[in-house]
């Protein structure tokens, strides 16, 4: 850094963030370079005044507190003017909606979708009917083919 101009360096980083080693190197350079010396001094003073500016605490206006409270009160009054049912709906709308949705889903499952247990009972009933056909033939002797065809026809219908 001894032979390198420091103007770029002092502009690219905050002066306060420079390490002591960097500052020492800059000081060595500024002993031989007048333009860098003036830039270094100016950067140092600029950093100082900016620091002082940042430390100044800006007080709010004396009416700030009153104004904020008044604004809050107005908002509260506006909220109070909403009807009771609307306020209740705002707080409970999610719960009511989810309950209604659950009821609709249960209704659909109960009345529209077929019950697997009911389907198997119907199939059993149709098989019983096939047996009844066979046994209702009375004393007449049935051939083996007639019995099989009667059973399988009923079975196919049941499916």
């Amino acid at each position: 850094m001894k032979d390198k101009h420091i103007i770029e360096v002092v502009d690219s980083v905050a002066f306060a963030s420079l390490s002591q080693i960097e500052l020492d190197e800059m000081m060595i350079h500024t002993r031989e370079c007048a333009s860098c010396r003036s830039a270094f001094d100016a950067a140092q003073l600029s950093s100082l005044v900016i620091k002082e500016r940042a430390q100044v605490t800006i007080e709010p206006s004396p009416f700030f507190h009153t104004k904020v409270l008044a604004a809050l009160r107005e908002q509260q009054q506006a909220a109070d003017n909403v009807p009771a049912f609307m306020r209740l709906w705002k707080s409970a709308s999610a719960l009511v909606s989810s309950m209604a949705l659950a009821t609709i889903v249960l209704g659909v499952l109960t009345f529209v979708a077929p019950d697997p247990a009911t389907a198997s009972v119907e199939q059993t009933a149709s098989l019983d009917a096939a047996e009844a056909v066979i046994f209702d033939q009375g004393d007449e002797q049935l051939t083996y083919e007639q019995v099989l065809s009667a059973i399988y026809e009923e079975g196919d219908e049941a499916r």
Partner: protein
Amino acid sequence: MEGWLTRIATNTCLNMLRGSKRRPELTVSDLSDDESGWLDQQPAGEVTQSVENNLVAADLADRLLGTLSPEDQQALLMIDGENASIKEVAEATGWSESKVKVRAFRARKKIRESMEKLLSYKGKRAFEQK
């Protein structure tokens, strides 16, 4: 929540700064007697700390910052004044990190050049008085 509030406060401050008039350049004739006297008292590297001097320095900073755009002022005050990192400024303002770096560099350079002019005038005046 904190980031959201910081962003709102930053934008409000920027809007206020945009509303104020920007000075193109600061000259010695713009300085008050106190500010001019403060500059005369400042040998580089030696800073006299007192409440009054600190206030004068803050006023001088206001004048110097008044020559910058509101965005450049914001970047410089946060980074050099409050020791915020580039990332923190980017988060608070919503700018990219490279934009923050460019703004800070530009602001620092302009402030330094203005201060250099003021100091050179001070040097000339001291030479003339001798």
